[in-house]
């Protein structure tokens, strides 16, 4: 008797056979594909919108400064060195850090002592995106004027000179417009430090990479600082905002997850019932295959792959339709990763749903359906 280790369906033969069976069973295939498509479409058009809304709400909360940490030398006795900015920038989970000297009153040099005063601070660190600058990059000792300070000083354009209390002047070479959490700087001029500048820092502004790291970054910043008088330091974080953010993210995320699970669960049951109905109608088909030499594993694989092929087609169609609906309703489409995750989840759910009916088909007694009465 021949000995042959090569038996049962190879991968390509299995896929080919599964696709032929799918085509030869159009009603069952269309039903299954439609269910998977509807599952994807419903998830994207409901949860997809919720996720977008969640992202917008969280972005607004973040704008209010959930990740901001401000260390202030209240009495000016701490004598914090400007080099602390570089050390803090090297800490983990720090997005950016700025150091500011104490404020000095200045006036428009063109107007002189009669002009309205604004404040000038030395800025240490690289300006973040929240501080949009206009004009050329200032050299050492030159200043940028904030949008509000420009009006206060009576500067028609962000260019000119300002007068220090000791009579020296500082050139203004550009302007800036700061958004939260640095919007307060719009009332100031920021001077780039020179090599000889050695003013101690009066405040340090740190942005953590995410709200969860505000507390550990705060602790790390305090450890890095080497204040002369630590009692003079105060630290401000938006822990309440961070808590609200976490709560909002949790609530909205929970709602989204529940909705996804509910839709997937319903889809899973419907796919299982459809595949089971198909398997029941094809009893003789599976009995014949068993007689021809198909093992139980081959039957399970055949049903699973057949369902997988249909599910892939249905999930892609459903995802496209869902994304289109979201685009029609909101003007934007869900993120590609979210789309892909929904497609993969729907396909996996469909595959899981097909396994019990596949097992039923594999375990059914072939002789019972093959016998001719």
């Amino acid at each position, binding site marked *: *008797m*021949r000995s042959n280790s090569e*038996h049962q369906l190879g991968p390509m033969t299995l896929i080919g056979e599964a696709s032929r069976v799918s085509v*030869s069973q159009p009603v069952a295939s269309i039903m299954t594909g439609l269910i998977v498509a509807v599952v994807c479409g419903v998830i994207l058009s409901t949860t997809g919108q919720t996720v977008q809304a969640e992202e917008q709400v969280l972005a607004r909360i973040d704008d209010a400064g959930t990740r901001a940490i401000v260390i202030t030398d209240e009495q000016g006795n701490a004598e914090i060195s400007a080099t602390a900015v570089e050390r803090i920038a090297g800490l983990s989970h720090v997005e950016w850090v700025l150091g500011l000297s104490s404020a000095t009153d200045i006036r428009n040099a063109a107007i002189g002592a009669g002009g309205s005063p604004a404040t000038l601070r030395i800025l240490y660190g690289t300006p973040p995106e929240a501080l949009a600058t206009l004009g050329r990059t200032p050299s050492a000792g030159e200043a940028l004027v904030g949008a509000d300070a420009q009006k206060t000083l009576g500067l028609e354009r962000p260019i000119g000179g300002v007068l220090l209390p000791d009579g020296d002047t500082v050139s203004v070479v550009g302007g800036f417009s700061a958004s939260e959490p640095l919007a307060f700087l719009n009332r100031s001029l920021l001077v780039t430090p020179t090599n000889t500048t050695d003013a101690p820092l009066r405040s340090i502004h740190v942005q953590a990479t995410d709200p969860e790291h505000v507390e550990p970054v705060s602790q790390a910043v305090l450890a890095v600082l080497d204040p002369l008088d630590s009692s003079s330091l105060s630290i401000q974080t938006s822990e309440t905002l961070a808590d609200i953010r976490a709560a909002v993210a949790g609530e909205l995320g929970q709602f989204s997850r529940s909705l996804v699970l509910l839709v997937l669960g319903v889809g899973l049951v419907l796919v299982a019932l459809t595949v089971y109905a198909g398997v029941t109608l094809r009893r003789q088909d599976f009995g014949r295959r068993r*007689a021809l*030499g198909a093992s139980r594993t081959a039957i399970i694989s055949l049903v699973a792959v057949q369902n997988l092929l249909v599910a892939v087609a249905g999930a892609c169609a459903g995802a496209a339709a869902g994304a289109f609906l979201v685009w029609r309703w909101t003007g934007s489409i869900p993120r590609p990763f979210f789309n892909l995750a929904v497609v993969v989840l729907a396909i996996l759910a469909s595959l899981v749903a097909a396994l019990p009916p596949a097992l039923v088909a594999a375990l059914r007694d072939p002789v019972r359906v093959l016998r001719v009465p």
Partner: protein
Amino acid sequence: MISVEDLSFSYTSRSEELFRDLSYDFPAGAVTTVTGPSGSGKSTLLYLLGLLLTPSGGAVHYDGRPASDLSDRERSRLRALHVGFVFQDAALDQSRAVLDNVAEGGLYGGMTRRRAARRARELLEQFGVEVPEKHKPGEVSGGQAQRIGLCRALIKEPTVVLADEPTGNLDRASADVVLDALVDVARNGATVVISSHDPVVVQRGDYALEL
């Protein structure tokens, strides 16, 4: 060669026991017919020989080795590689084309789809199945359908062919074609077992087992 030793079988614990310690050799290179009245277990014996059923007592041997107590995977492997079934009603997949039906017989033994399709075309031509290969079984006559079923059984070049009332639904001419083919397979060395109550079929056999 396949053989049964002290074979008995019952579908349920309360149903009547069939065969009652039957021992019999089904030689290779010969046609053995199985006859008997309705309910005597002719089809059941074929399913036992094809390892689709497990005996209640005794054993089925393939080439002297016990086969009926093998795992499902091993029994499936034996069927896929060595056993060709011919059913009374042909048992064709009505939703698939004639060519697909024949080719399917080779897939579980590891044939590629392309090779199986090529071999299927040769067999359909050899047995005079003159219908377009994309036709569905519902579009062919009963005689043609049984020949398609025969092609499906022979595509893997089996060493054992089990035919359950293969001529039961056929006219004499179609029955002769099927019987000639089964006799040819036996002459080429295969073990052929045919269950039938048709005296013409029994006459064509080399050995007869009456249940």
